[in-house]
């Protein structure tokens, strides 16, 4: 039976609204800042075959680890089936997940014994058991040391809570708020299932199935139309991670992108296959970065559903760093080489689609964590430094990089000095844009921030650094962004430039670290930049006088607020350079 396109559109809109309601429910009810503030949660609605129908996304890179675990559950429970009132939990990177702290909670919508839809909500949790708090264990020898694995476990069975399972989960987690946040997810999944049940009642099972087919076909068609407009050919690129958290150098990601009519193949054959690293990206994670990068290069209005995701022929050889053998550690690899998956894809396509290319990535190995004791109570505090800062935001054709980070991370809301200083004994001395850190180009990369945090009590600083040897890469002749640069105990005799890891570097009360975050890269030839814009950048102290001449070939005369472009000298200089 076919469905009229108006009803299909009405149902699609209703499902997206349900996804939004689920995500909002988690934001309202969760107690962890990652969830209620930073928006690291993705709500998805899948059909009975595990195909993604609609979603509400916090961070695009992580949206997909919400669907593959559901598919595993459908396989695993194929015989006995899923029942109305069931709620399941899954987090395992080797059963479709991204990394262990991402917990996926989902509930089936069963009508007359038929599985019609599944409401799923994925959230990042502050801890996941294992050898180190937070799930980032640089010393972990394997996945089991990173945390507890839940491939697909029923936590509600036909509407009855499985107390034993929930209690087991609670006892395997360090953070007291964990189970409350899991409950927030259960509430959201149940809310989603209830609302979807009402939709099924209104439009009947056939109506819903047809609407899902329609939406998926629609997205696939739009995707293929975009690809068809791209020039046919095979495009390759190689990118690198500086090193893994223990110092193994130059982790390589290689991609070959083949455009053939309206078909798109993305093949990571040739990527690093060393087996002794601490940097593996699970397949679900790899796929997420591929899709997020592609989404940024297409019409933003295309619905993100299975039709979109399934239109990519993705090849990731088993055993390489982007699809590791079961058991490898994945916590650090979620970000690196996860990030480089998107970067390589962007750089390959930038050769033919420069006007669409802007890497939706970051070069932050891990958040900079400050451990210490509260002076009044003696309680341990952990400041994850999700602070106001700018970094890694490259230019696009027609627009300078701006704000904080690339647009994919526009939902990641950062903590302010005034609130954090009231909670932690740490002073935020600044986060100003650092001059000349944004890559030069016809369109300039956004500068990175110079962040200075001073501890007011003895504290230790831990972080993993990348993006020094391999900063943000320029597009279409644009220059690279500046590298990251971290100095601990800045301004003291023990001042130290961090090369790989800061492993709990002690800071005395009153000492500070300075993290100059890498800038975004430029887009296009800097000599093509409108000299008036260069003048504005100099007036705004984003670009120095010297760099205006050196990088952009623009000569300015006058002083201070009275600076002006010397058009003659600029013309001469640019001609010399050309």
């Amino acid at each position, binding site marked *: 039976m076919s469905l009229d396109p*108006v009803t299909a559109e*009405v149902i699609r809109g209703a499902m997206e609204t349900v996804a939004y309601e689920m995500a909002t429910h988690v934001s309202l009810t969760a*107690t962890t800042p990652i969830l209620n503030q930073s928006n690291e949660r993705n709500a998805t609605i899948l059909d009975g075959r595990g195909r993604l129908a609609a979603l509400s996304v916090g961070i695009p890179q992580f949206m997909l680890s919400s669907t593959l675990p559901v598919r595993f559950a459908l396989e695993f429970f194929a015989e006995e089936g899923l029942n109305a009132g069931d709620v399941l939990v899954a987090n395992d990177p080797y059963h479709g997940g991204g990394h262990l702290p991402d917990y996926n909670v989902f509930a089936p919508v069963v009508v007359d014994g038929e599985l019609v839809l599944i409401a799923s909500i994925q959230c990042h949790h502050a801890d996941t058991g294992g050898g180190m708090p937070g799930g980032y264990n640089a010393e972990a020898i394997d996945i089991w040391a990173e945390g507890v694995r839940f491939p697909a476990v029923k936590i509600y069975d036909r509407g009855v809570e499985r107390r034993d399972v929930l209690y087991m989960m609670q006892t395997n987690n360090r953070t007291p708020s964990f189970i409350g946040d899991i409950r927030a997810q259960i509430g959201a999944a149940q809310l989603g299932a209830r609302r979807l049940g009402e939709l099924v009642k209104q439009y009947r099972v056939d109506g819903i199935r047809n609407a899902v087919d329609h939406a998926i076909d629609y997205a696939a*068609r739009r995707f293929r139309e975009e690809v068809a407009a791209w020039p046919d050919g095979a495009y390759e690129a190689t990118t690198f991670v500086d090193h893994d958290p223990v110092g193994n150098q130059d982790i390589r990601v290689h991609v070959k992108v083949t455009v053939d009519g309206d078909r798109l193949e993305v093949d990571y054959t040739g990527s690093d296959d060393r087996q002794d690293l601490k940097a593996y990206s699970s397949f679900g994670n790899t796929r997420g970065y591929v899709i997020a990068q592609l989404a940024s290069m297409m019409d933003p209005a295309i619905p993100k559903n299975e039709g979109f995701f399934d239109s990519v022929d993705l090849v990731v050889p088993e055993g390489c760093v982007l699809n590791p053998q079961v058991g490898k550690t994945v916590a650090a690899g979620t970000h690196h080489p996860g990030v480089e998956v998107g970067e390589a894809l962007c750089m390959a396509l930038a050769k033919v689609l420069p006007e669409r290319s802007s890497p939706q990535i970051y070069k932050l190995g891990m958040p900079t964590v400050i451990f210490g004791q509260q002076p009044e109570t003696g309680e341990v505090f952990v400041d994850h430094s999700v602070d106001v800062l700018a970094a890694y935001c490259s230019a696009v054709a027609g627009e300078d990089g701006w704000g904080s980070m*690339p*647009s994919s991370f526009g939902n990641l809301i950062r903590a302010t000095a005034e609130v954090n200083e009231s909670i932690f004994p740490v002073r935020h001395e600044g986060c100003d844009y650092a001059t000349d850190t944004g890559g030069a180009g016809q369109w300039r990369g956004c500068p990175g921030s110079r962040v200075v945090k001073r501890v007011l009590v003895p504290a230790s600083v831990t972080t993993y650094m990348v993006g020094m040897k391999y900063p943000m890469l320029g597009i279409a002749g644009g220059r690279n962004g500046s590298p990251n640069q971290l100095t601990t105990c800045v301004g003291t005799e023990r001042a130290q430039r961090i090369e790989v890891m800061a492993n709990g570097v002690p800071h005395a009360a009153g000492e500070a670290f300075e993290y100059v975050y890498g800038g975004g890269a430029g887009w296009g030839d800097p000599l093509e930049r409108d000299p008036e814009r260069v003048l504005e950048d100099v007036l705004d102290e984003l670009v120095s006088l010297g760099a205006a001449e050196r990088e952009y070939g623009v000569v300015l005369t006058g002083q201070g607020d009275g600076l002006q472009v010397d058009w003659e000298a600029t013309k001469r200089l640019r001609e010399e350079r050309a």
Partner: protein
Amino acid sequence: MPYRIGIDVGGTFTDFILIRRDGTLGLGKTPTTLEDQSLGVMRGLEEMARAEGRDLGGLLADTEIVVHGTTTADNTMIEMNGAVTGLLTSEGHRDEIDIRRGFKENIWDPAYPPPTPIAPRRRRFGVPERLDFRGQVVRPLDEDAVRAAVGRLKRQGVESIAVCLLFSFVNPAHERRVAEICREEYPEARLSVSHEIMPTAPEFERTSTTLVDAYVGPRLETYLANLESALRGAGYGRDLLIMQSNGGIMTAGFMARKAVAALGSGPTGGVMGACAVSRDAGFEDFISIDMGGTSYEACLVKGGRPTIRSFWNWQHRYLVGLPMVEMHSIGAGGGSIASVEAGALKVGPQSAKADPGPICYGRGGSEPTVTDANWVLGYINPESLCGGEFKLSGDGVREAITRRVGEPLGLDLVEAAHGIFRIVNANMANAIRRVSCESGYDPRDFNMVVYGGNGPVHAGKQAEELGIGRYLVPKTSPAFSALGLVIADYVVDIQRSYITPSGRAEADRVNTLLGEMETQALDDLRVAGLGAGDIDFRRYLAICYPGQTFDLAVPARVTSDGRLGEAELRATVEAFHDLHEETHTYAARDEEPILRAVRVQAVGRTPKPPLELADGASGSLEDALRARRPAWFDGGYVDTPVYDGDRVSAGQRIEGPAIVEERFTTIVLYPGHRAQIDARGNYHVTVEA
């Protein structure tokens, strides 16, 4: 003092409402004069006077109150043509306004442009100074550096300066000193000082709010001064009053100093009007809906008071941290354009606006709109609107809908028109679902109050989709926002940060803050001629759980003197758990909540004139029957009675399917819907489940 006058400036029309001593109402409408809104306002007032058989001077001399809803502040932000603005902030925090706490509106589009900067970086300066979170000086203010920065702002021709230093809401000494230096060095510049505009954390929200104030301030000040002097010149002897974004009114002089509070001034009037009619009608939980030509505005009202938002409230791409009546706006209106994109029907957010408008306006519009679909479906009068003044023409409507919507989707004309109608209804219903889930409520527990030119055409379908059983269309729907202005109270909102685990909160400190804020509110309201006896204080503590970003405003438990003892403080924290459970499904009673701020709302009561009661039913409903026409219901055209809104009367009941044509709006009653007309002429519609 017989007259009270409300003036609401909209994008197309300026609406007037006049309440006479006997409670009868006069309505007026005049085209908005965009270049200087005061011209249209004065012209409209002259027309109102003429209609009353008075000259303008006589009318204004007899007017007790003029309340005004202005779009000047919003227009300045839409067009981004405010003052040349500079910012002085704490060293190291110069760029927080550009970094926006990481927020970007569109996560899928890397080419999405940044907002136009209110103060570009060359006009932002960090000055050496620093306080800690207790307000203790960590680094003294470098006054020479401040003078140098002000000098640079002066050389750049800055007209307005925002000052926002860290922790100024705890200790404003540095900020005050910076303001003094600005006045010494550059007395011509207007000043917005953050601890006066918004004395709360965090710095990004406060900086943004203060910058918006600095940016719109000079223009609003000039406009209000012009209007006030025109009114005085014409014979009005009282204060001009302005609707604020918090739903209360204040004097023009107060608003000139707190210009940012004038954002959303106009639409807020409608919500306050809806609160009044619903109170009259005996319900308190409702969603107000204003659907005009371009946009659809919804506000959730619980317990008779609109949802107030002060957190993470983006207005025109800037964050405004003052309490505002929470309006949700989507691009859905009569002018919303329907199009087919790659096989999917989209309606809005692009709008044909008033010019050229929908095709049926006959002014050159060529793209099918919601109003055109309604025309095909028989919901609106096929010949004219506004009681015959505004002619409609069907030329090209059918062809455009068929060609642009029908053919690409394989639908016939009526299916296509109905498709447009369904999509716009679905968009609006989804918007309501989002509004209510964000507040933690189920729309089924709410009524609706519907106004604006197009709201009552669509309301019935939305009610059905959302499972809402009852809605109300006020008789004064066309000038409803203006009515809301006249009956609003004075409101002053003040908040002070006090961040501490609730167990360590000191009642004395809370009481000191309450005392300071209440004194300030009394001073502000005294200017408007109110004494302590006319003022109610509502006191709140803003509380959250550890780690939460959002806080809840919990009504403070107080003793008879309006203060808290330790017991009251504990009881208020306990009430927070309950409120959290109500709106967020759970309470974490084993956690120690965090106190974030103390808040006072001072409400200065205005006299509420009794509104006119309509005469009882003077004739039968048959007398009001104007015509019958085919209209589309339940899959076919139904011969539908069309009633004249001027002739239906109190006590009558109209069964759907039926259409009522009011002068400036049309009410469509769907099958199974029934309207009951009350003593004020309002339509109470019930929807059969």
